[in-house]
C-alpha cells in the first residue's frame, strides 16, 4: 500500500496529492523535500529509488518519474519494507492519464482522484497476476529460474567470503531490477527485489527459495549430493559451508605456524648483505657537521612568498567550439538508413530549425554517447560517467529545443549546467571555523587520510604553510607510525615551517598519539592541529578499522580525504569504502551511533599539475562522496596550493 502520491511542477507548486494513510507521524512533504534536495538536485535522478528516514517512524522509499516537456514530477512514497512491484508501472500510467487532464496554470483536479484509484487498482491486479503466474512451478520456469538459481549460488558463495566488498550485492540487485519476473519466481516477497539488499543472508535465502520454486527434480539433486532444497537441505548447505570455512581457517593457521616458528625478533640491519658495521657507519652523516646546516639547504620557508591559493583567480575564457555538435551529427548520419535520407533530413530540420517536436531518447542517444565517451577520455570513472549521463538524459527527454539549436549544443549546455552544479558544492570556510574554535578555546583538528602515496604529508605541509601565513598557530601530529621516514619527513617540514611537531616515533598507536597531540596543542594554545596518518588501501579492513578508531576517538572537526588527480576508476571505490568504513566500523556505530557521525568532509586533490586536461578525477570524487574539493595541490613546493576552479574544470571536461 502506498503512503503518499504527489504530482508537482519543477518550480515547486503541488498540483495534486493523495495521502493514503494518516498514521504517518511526520509531514509527508518532508520526504519530498529530502528527495529533491539530496537526490534530484544532486544529479542522481537516474537512481532506481530513494530512501527517506524520518526522525520518527519507519523508513520510506520513494520512486519518481518526470515529464520534462511540461516540467512535471510524479512521486510515489511507500514503506520501504513493503517493496511494492507495481510502482513503476503505476507512475507511467498515472503520467499518461494526468497529461490528458493537465492545463498549465490550473491547480485543482478534483476528478482525477477516481481515475487514480482505478489505475491503482489495475496496476495492483496486474502485479498480483504476474506474481501468481510466475510462482506456479511450470516446465517453462526452470529456464527462467535456472539463471536466477545459478546467480543465487554464485552470490551465496561469494557472500560467505569475508570482506567481499560491494561488487557481488550490486550485481545481484542489478540482476533483480532487470528481471522482476525472475525475482518473483524466486518467491522472495520483495525484500530482496524492491529495496537494496546487500546482506549475504538474504542472498542465501533467495537462492534457496529459487531452488524450491523452480521445477527441479529434487530426488535427482539429492542423489548427486548437490545442495538440495527444503529446510533440511538448507540446514545441510549452511552446515556444509561452515565446515568448509573452518577447514580453511585451520589450514591457514597451520601454514602461518609453519612459516614463523617462535623466534625472537632480531634488529634490522640497514645497508645489509653482510657488511654491517661499515654500512651503518657510511649511512650516518650526522657527525662532523654543524647542526643547523645539516637539516636543510636553503633555510626556512619564510621567504617563499604567499601561497598560490591567495593569488587572484585568473579570468577563464572558455573556448567556444562545437565538436559535440559535429560528432552528434555524424552519429545522426549513421542512423538514417532506417528512416530514409529524406525523412531523417526533415526530422533534423524539424528538431534544430523549427524546434517543434520533443526530443526522444533516440534523438539524444548519439549525443549522450559522445558525451559519455568524452567524459571517460577525461579520466572520469566509468560508472560515474554513466550515472551523470543517465541523470541528464532523464532531465532532457521530452524537452523541446528552442529554434536553431542543434541537439549537440543543447546537450552540451545541459551538461555544463549539471556538471557545474555537481562541482559547486558548499565550501567549508576553514579560516572562519578556526576562528570560531579559537573563541571556544579548543584547537581545530584536521585529519588527513588516503591511500598510499597520494601526497598526504606534502599537502599537509602546504596547508600548514598557508595557515601560518594567515596567523593561525599550527601544530603537526605525526600519526603515521608505520612508514619508514614518515616522522623524520614531518620533522623536516616542521623545522622549515617553524611549527611544533608532536611525535612519538614508530610502532605506537596512532589514535593515542593523536589524542595526546591535541591535548598538548590545547595546553600550548595552538589553533590548529594537522594530523598525518599512514596511507592504507581501502580494502584493508584492520587498517580501516584503526583509522575509524582514530577519528571517532578524537572527533576531528575536519576529515580530509587526500586523492591524487591521476587516479582513474579506483577513485570511486576509494571514496565509497573510506566513507563506509568511517561510518560502519567506528566503535559504537552498532550501539546507535556516536554523537557526531563522521564521514569525509572534504577532498584534497593532489598532483593536479601532472594532468593537463584529464581532470575527471575531480568529478568522480565529488560525485561519489558528496564532499567538496577544498584544496588542490599543484606542485611540490609549499606555495603550490590552490582552490578548485570549477569553470575551468567543466570546460576541460567538455572540450
Amino acid at each position, binding site marked *: 500500500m502506498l503512503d503518499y502520491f*504527489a504530482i*508537482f511542477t*519543477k*518550480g*515547486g*507548486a*503541488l*498540483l*495534486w*496529492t493523495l495521502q493514503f494513510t494518516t498514521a504517518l507521524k511526520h509531514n509527508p*512533504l518532508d520526504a*519530498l*523535500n529530502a528527495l*529533491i*534536495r539530496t537526490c*534530484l*538536485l*544532486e544529479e542522481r535522478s537516474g537512481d532506481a529509488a530513494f530512501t527517506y528516514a524520518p526522525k520518527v517512524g519507519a523508513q520510506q522509499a520513494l520512486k519518481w518519474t518526470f515529464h520534462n516537456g511540461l*516540467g512535471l*514530477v510524479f512521486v510515489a512514497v511507500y514503506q520501504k519494507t513493503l517493496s511494492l512491484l507495481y510502482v513503476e508501472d503505476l507512475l507511467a500510467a498515472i503520467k499518461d492519464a494526468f497529461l490528458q487532464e493537465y492545463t498549465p496554470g490550473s*491547480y*485543482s483536479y478534483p476528478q482525477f482522484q477516481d481515475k487514480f484509484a482505478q489505475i491503482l487498482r489495475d496496476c495492483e491486479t496486474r502485479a498480483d497476476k504476474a506474481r501468481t503466474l510466475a510462482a506456479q512451478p511450470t516446465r517453462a520456469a526452470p529456464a527462467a529460474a535456472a539463471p536466477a538459481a545459478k546467480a543465487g549460488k554464485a552470490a551465496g558463495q561469494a557472500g560467505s567470503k569475508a570482506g567481499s566488498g560491494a561488487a557481488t550485492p550490486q550485481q545481484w540487485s542489478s540482476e533483480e531490477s532487470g528481471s522482476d519476473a525472475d525475482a518473483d519466481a524466486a518467491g522472495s516477497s520483495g525484500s530482496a527485489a524492491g529495496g537494496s539488499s546487500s546482506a549475504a543472508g538474504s542472498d542465501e535465502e533467495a537462492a534457496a527459495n529459487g531452488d524450491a520454486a523452480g521445477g527441479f527434480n529434487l530426488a535427482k539433486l539429492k542423489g548427486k549430493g548437490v545442495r538440495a532444497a527444503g529446510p533440511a537441505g538448507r540446514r545441510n548447505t549452511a552446515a556444509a559451508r561452515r565446515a568448509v570455512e573452518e577447514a580453511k581457517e585451520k589450514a591457514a593457521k597451520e601454514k602461518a605456524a609453519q612459516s614463523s616458528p617462535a623466534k625472537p625478533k632480531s634488529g634490522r640491519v640497514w645497508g645489509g648483505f653482510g657488511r654491517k658495521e661499515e654500512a651503518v657507519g657510511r649511512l650516518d652523516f650526522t657527525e662532523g657537521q654543524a647542526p643547523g646546516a645539516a637539516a636543510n639547504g636553503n633555510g626556512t620557508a619564510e621567504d617563499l612568498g604567499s601561497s598560490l*591559493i*591567495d*593569488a*587572484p*583567480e585568473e579570468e577563464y575564457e572558455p573556448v567556444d567550439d562545437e565538436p559535440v555538435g559535429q560528432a552528434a551529427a555524424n552519429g545522426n548520419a549513421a542512423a538514417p538508413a532506417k528512416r530514409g535520407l529524406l525523412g531523417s533530413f526533415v526530422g533534423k530540420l524539424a528538431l534544430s530549425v523549427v524546434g517543434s517536436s520533443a526530443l526522444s531518447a533516440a534523438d539524444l542517444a548519439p549525443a549522450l554517447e559522445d558525451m559519455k565517451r568524452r567524459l571517460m577520455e577525461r579520466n572520469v570513472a566509468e560508472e560515474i560517467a554513466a550515472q551523470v549521463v543517465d541523470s541528464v538524459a532523464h532531465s532532457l527527454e521530452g524537452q523541446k529545443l528552442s529554434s536553431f539549436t542543434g541537439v549537440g549544443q543543447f546537450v552540451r549546455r545541459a551538461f555544463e549546467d549539471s556538471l*557545474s*552544479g*555537481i562541482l*559547486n*558544492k*558548499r565550501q567549508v*570556510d*576553514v*579560516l*572562519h571555523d578556526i*576562528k570560531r574554535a579559537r573563541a571556544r578555546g579548543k584547537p581545530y583538528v584536521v585529519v588527513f587520510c588516503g591511500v598510499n602515496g597520494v601526497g598526504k604529508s606534502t599537502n599537509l605541509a602546504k596547508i600548514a604553510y598557508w595557515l601560518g601565513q*594567515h596567523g593561525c598557530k599550527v601544530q603537526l601530529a605525526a600519526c603515521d607510525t608505520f612508514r619508514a621516514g614518515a616522522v623524520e619527513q614531518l620533522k623536516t617540514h616542521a623545522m622549515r615551517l617553524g611549527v611544533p611537531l608532536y611525535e612519538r616515533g614508530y610502532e605506537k598507536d596512532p589514535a593515542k598519539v593523536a589524542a595526546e597531540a591535541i591535548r598538548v596543542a590545547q595546553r600550548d594554545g595552538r589553533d590548529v592541529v594537522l594530523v598525518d596518518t599512514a596511507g592504507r588501501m581501502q580494502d584493508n579492513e584492520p587498517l580501516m578499522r584503526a583509522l575509524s578508531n582514530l577519528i571517532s576517538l578524537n572527533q576531528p572537526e575536519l576529515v580530509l580525504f587526500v586523492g591524487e588527480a591521476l587516479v582513474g576508476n579506483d577513485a570511486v571505490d576509494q571514496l565509497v569504502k573510506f566513507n563506509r568504513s568511517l561510518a560502519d566500523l567506528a566503535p559504537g556505530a552498532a550501539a546507535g551511533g556516536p554523537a557526531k557521525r563522521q564521514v569525509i568532509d572534504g577532498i584534497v586533490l593532489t598532483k593536479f599539475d601532472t594532468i593537463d586536461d584529464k581532470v575527471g578525477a575531480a568529478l568522480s570524487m565529488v560525485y561519489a562522496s558528496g564532499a567538496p574539493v577544498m584544496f588542490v595541490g599543484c606542485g611540490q613546493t609549499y606555495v603550490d596550493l590552490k*582552490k578548485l576552479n570549477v569553470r575551468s574544470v567543466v570546460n576541460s571536461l567538455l572540450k
Partner: protein
Amino acid sequence: MIPDALRQQLQLLLEHQPIVKQIIQYLPSDLQRVAGTPEGLLALLLTAAVGLLVLLALAGTSKSKKGSSILLAGPMNAGKSTMYYQLVDGSQHNGLVASMEQNTGVASVNGRQARLLDIPGHHSFRHKLESSVKDAAGIVFVIDAVEITPHKVEAAEMLYELLTNSSFAKSRTPLLLACNKADLEEEAHSTEFIRKTLERQLDAMRKTKTAGIGKEASAGVALGAADKPFSFAGLRSKVALVECSAKAGQLDDVRAFIAGCL
C-alpha cells in the same frame, strides 16, 4: 572614382559652405590638403560618420542599463517560491515543495507590472544566481525568521556572495531583507535580532574570505570600512529589513519595495 554628380555636390559644399571651410581650417595641414579635394572630403565625412556610429554603439553597451526584473533569492526553505506564487497568483494553491528550477512570471504590484525571477536556494544554482544579478532592478533576499540560528552561516554566505558581486556593487541595486514566516509569531525572531546576527556573521566572513578565496581585493573594500564592524547601514547600496509572511499573504512591505524599484 566617385560619380560626377556626387563630385559636383561635394565641390559645391567645399566652395559655398563657410562652415565646412572653417572646420577644414582647424584640421592639421596635411589633412587640409586632402580635405580640399572632393574625394578627400568624402573620405573624411565617411570616417567621421563611422566613428560616430562606433561611439554610439559603445556608449549604448557600456551604459549600465537598469535591470528589468526583481530577483527573489535566499537560502533553502526560506519561502521564496511561496512568496513568488503569492505575488503572481495571489495564493499558494495546494502548497509547495522544494523548487528544482527557477520560476519566472509577471506580478502586478500596486498597479504596475513587475517581472519576478525566483531562483532555488540549492547550492547548484549559485552560478545562475550570480549571472542573474546584473539584470536585476531590485533583489528581495528572503530569510527564514524562525530557523535563522541554525542556518545563519548559509544565509550569510549567500548574502556575502550577493553583496560582493561586482554588478550589484556597481549599479547599487536596492536590496530588501525579507524576514519571512512572521505568521509563527512566537517562534519568529525579530528583525533586530536577524540584523545583528547577519551583521556579525558577515563581519567575521569578510575577514576570512578576503584572505582565503582569491577574489579581487576590491571585494573586501566594498563591504564597508575594514576597521569598523560591518553594518548594513554602512553599505553604499540601499538595504532594508522588513517582516513578512508569504503563507499568510502579508507582503505589503515587499510590494512597496518592488514598486519602488521599478
